[in-house]
């Protein structure tokens, strides 16, 4: 009985009767490859790869923006860029790197790995997952369309957003930035937030509810734990910025007074709401990387993670304390002594759980057999660099000292150490580590190591001098500086370092592309891994597991490798049981998620310019964008409705004893 339910309720919904005569607006696509296959996919691995591909593209774009920034600052009083362009560049650099590069890269790994690590066939809500992806794309488009006005005068967006990545009110009010770019920034972030919330809800349910038998919470791989904490942070932190963005949007479009001083508004409220989100956000960026590192270090030390429960607990603690420290970004806004002191102390407290992680990673290395493969080098680089970044964070937390550091290059140094030395290093480690799993090919060691050293050296040359620039009084977000300030050499070194770093990044990705086509074919388990994803073929088949595994220990695969007979028998039984009740159920692809996202694009794009007339072919078509905005929202609602009627659908896979997979639809 329970098995029967299992089969149906796997996708969580109603089971359609056998002979269905649904009036279908769009036939459910079945193509697994090709454009349609990718656009309508609900397979978590494909969605993960799409996330990853887009994110890497935007990482390069953000990096290019950074290189332009560094080029402008290479000498004093430079005229390479105009002030306005520079402001657009750093705004978009920050926004891109955070929302369009690191977050989606993490989302990519969530998608790729969570179902594999918990032993599931997909996420809990596969179509919702595809919706998150396409909504994210909508947000990325909205944020970046502004660039077009630099190339096509007809697009009057007023350039890319230029309010800084935290868009402090009242600079975002219509009086100071009347351009459309700011509206697009507001809507872009809002849409990205929606995407993240939806995706996170999905991951939370997947991790909590779709664990394979025997996989208790305290056996969950650390990466998955960190993904869970991150997802919680996302659903709890994003609402704050969502409300703040709504308020700005109302201020800009409907004359409300939230941040309008003449009406009694207090712009500081924006800062509070932003950082209530913004600080947890930085842990959203770093916790998944801590997860990657916690997977990679044990693998290459050939030892389990030291102090697993404490690492997990400290991750949760970081997430929790992270909600109580937001005002450390506002030490200079005159919070009052008590609040300043309270937030300073709370901020320092975060060093403790973070330190615990560092200590346990060292504990993991201790007594191991360290194999310095490329992922391991990035992971070790992560520990070193993140520690340095954490220390400058502690320096910030001493509020009176921060009065000198805030908005100076010292902050830039701090957060690039944690964001690049931390998050990015770990991501590069992760990409390298899991590349063989998802593409079935190895990345050559030599080129990997070369790119590591280029990146490591370039990174330190770029950002180490920035500490000194900051202490020497160089403010951030300045498009130019004078030659008598003592900043010339530091900036020159930093810019040269940035080029080196760029070269390293270029090498890294060029090698990946080469390996994709020409790399040595990897086996299922090239690194002698410890978690479940290494137990299945590379690249993983559509259904992930021929049989849902039963988990017996914390490092599930490691355990299986050392208890092979027992496991083999268990496996065979599982396969048989599954086949006896109809085979492996797989969800159907669907058009509706992407159509809904398209509706959202039309809706938000037009809502952003509500008060402008719609012009086409030099003619005013509508007096406002309202009709188009409503059209977009109607598409969205209709698509969601059809989506709910469509049901999860599905087909079955049957695995023959010789491993051949066949597909069956309908009757069973």
């Amino acid at each position, binding site marked *: *009985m*329970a098995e*029967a*339910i*299992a089969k*149906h*309720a*796997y996708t*969580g919904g*109603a*089971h*359609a*009767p056998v*002979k*269905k*005569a*649904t*009036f*279908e*607006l769009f036939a459910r696509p079945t193509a697994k490859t090709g454009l349609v296959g990718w656009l309508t996919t609900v397979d978590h691995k494909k969605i993960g790869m799409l996330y990853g591909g887009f994110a890497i593209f935007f990482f390069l774009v953000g990096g290019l923006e950074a290189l332009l920034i560094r080029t402008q600052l290479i000498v004093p009083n430079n005229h390479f860029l105009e002030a306005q362009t520079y402001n657009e560049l750093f705004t978009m650099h920050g926004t891109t790197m955070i929302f369009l590069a690191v977050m989606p890269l993490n989302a990519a790994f969530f998608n790729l790995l969570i179902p594999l690590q918990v032993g599931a066939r997909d996420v*809990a*809500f596969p179509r919702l997952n595809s919706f998150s992806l396409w909504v994210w794309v909508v947000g990325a488009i909205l944020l970046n369309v502004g660039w077009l006005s630099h190339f096509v005068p007809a697009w009057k967006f007023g350039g890319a957003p230029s309010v800084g990545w935290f868009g402090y009110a009242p600079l975002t009010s219509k009086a100071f930035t009347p351009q459309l770019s700011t509206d697009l920034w507001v809507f872009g972030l809002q849409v990205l937030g929606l995407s993240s*919330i939806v995706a996170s*809800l*999905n991951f*939370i*349910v997947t991790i*909590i*509810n*779709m*664990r394979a038998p025997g*996989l208790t919470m305290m056996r969950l791989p650390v990466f998955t734990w960190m993904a869970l904490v991150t997802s919680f942070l996302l*659903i*709890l*932190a*994003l*609402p*704050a910025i*969502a*409300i*703040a963005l*709504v*308020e700005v949007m*109302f201020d800009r479009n*409907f*004359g*409300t*007074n*939230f941040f309008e001083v003449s*009406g*009694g*508004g*207090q712009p500081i*409220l924006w800062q509070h*709401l932003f950082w*209530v989100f913004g600080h947890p956000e930085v842990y959203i960026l770093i916790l998944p990387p801590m997860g990657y590192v916690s997977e990679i270090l044990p693998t290459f030390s050939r030892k389990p993670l030291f102090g697993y429960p404490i690492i997990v607990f400290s991750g949760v603690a970081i997430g929790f304390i992270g909600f109580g420290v937001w005002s450390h970004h506002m030490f200079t806004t005159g919070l009052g002594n008590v609040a300043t002191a309270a937030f300073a102390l709370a901020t320092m407290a975060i060093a403790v759980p973070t330190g615990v992680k560092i200590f346990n990673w060292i504990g993991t290395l201790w007594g191991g057999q360290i194999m310095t493969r490329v992922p391991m080098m990035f992971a070790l680089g992560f520990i070193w660099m993140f520690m340095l970044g954490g220390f400058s964070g502690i320096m910030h937390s001493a509020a009176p000292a921060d009065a000198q550091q805030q908005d100076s290059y010292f902050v830039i140094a701090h957060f690039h150490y944690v964001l690049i030395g931390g998050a990015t290093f770990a991501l590069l480690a992760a990409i390298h580590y899991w590349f063989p799993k998802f593409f079935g090919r190895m990345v050559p060691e030599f080129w990997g190591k070369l790119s590591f050293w280029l990146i490591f050296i370039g990174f330190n040359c770029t950002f180490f001098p920035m500490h000194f620039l900051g202490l020497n009084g160089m403010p951030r977000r300045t498009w130019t500086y004078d030659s008598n300030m003592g900043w010339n050499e530091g900036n020159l070194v930093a810019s040269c370092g940035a080029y080196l770093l760029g070269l390293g990044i270029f090498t890294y990705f060029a090698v990946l592309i080469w390996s994709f086509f020409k790399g040595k074919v990897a086996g299922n388990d090239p690194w002698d891994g410890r978690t479940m994803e290494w137990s299945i073929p590379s690249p993983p088949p559509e259904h992930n597991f021929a049989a849902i595994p039963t988990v017996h220990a914390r490092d599930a695969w490691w355990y299986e490798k050392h208890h092979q007979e027992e496991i083999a028998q268990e496996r065979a039984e599982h396969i048989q049981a599954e086949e006896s009740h109809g085979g492996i159920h797989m969800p159907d692809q669907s058009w509706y998620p992407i159509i809904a996202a398209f509706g959202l694009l039309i809706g938000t794009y037009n809502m952003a310019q509500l008060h402008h007339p719609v012009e086409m072919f030099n003619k005013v078509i509508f007096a406002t964008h309202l009709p188009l905005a409503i059209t977009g929202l109607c598409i969205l*609602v209709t698509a969601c*409705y059809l989506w*709910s*009627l469509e049901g999860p659908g599905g087909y079955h896979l049957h695995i023959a004893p010789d491993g051949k997979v066949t597909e069956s639809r309908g009757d069973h």
Partner: protein
Amino acid sequence: MNSHAATIDHHHDATTATGIPNKKLLWWAFLASDCMFFGALISTHLVYRLNPPPGNAVPTQIFNIELTSFSTFILLMSSLLMALAVNAIQRGNVRSTRTMLLGTMFFGCLFLGGQVFEFTHFVYVKKMTLSNSIFGSTFFTLTGTHGTHVAIGVLLLGMMYVRTFKPAQGGGLLLNFVHLLAVCVTFGVAFIWFVPGMIEVVYGASFSELLREHAIPFAAGIVGLIALIALGRTRGAVEFGEKNAIDVEAIGLYWHFVDIVWIIIFTAVYLLEYL
């Protein structure tokens, strides 16, 4: 699998690791997130109440506490009906579920109508707009967001209601769509024009005047209502049944949440002003 062959335990799902159905978990997580949404909104409102600027609206001169208390009561009743709808479907009673869903929507509509009345009253009679005072900005945004939640709730309930008619043998998408349209039109007209109008009448406006003023929407509403009644008759076997209890329950969670948010708003935004 047959619905009478198995007892469906509505508090335990054997297919998930925790025994909590996926959908229920999703909605509870979403509600946790929604707490932060309203937390941020209510904070904004209260923060601006702490130190009001000159020229701010004076809430007690604007509010109509009788009407708001009545709305609160209405929303509580809708919660009751929602709970009963879940109760009914968990016992496999589709008929009763439909009635309860309609009832919930009806009360939701009354609440929304009350809010539409309140808003227009504040704007045109009390001269408090979204933009002429900070109180107006925060008040309308907070209660408006809540109202939007209610409206989305009504829409979701409408979709659920229509779905209970989905024939067992499939097909009928078009009819389904028309049905949903009828729901939208009827309830839309009810809360945008009819209910606020009736409140005016209670406060002394003339009914015939009202009819004349909104003749077109009212006509549309009546057409919608007739369509609803016509389409609402049972036509053969339906797919919807006890196994869908989780779907109804999920929407129920949302609906009750909107209710508890109002419990807080009612105290924090309205009642406390009277002290």
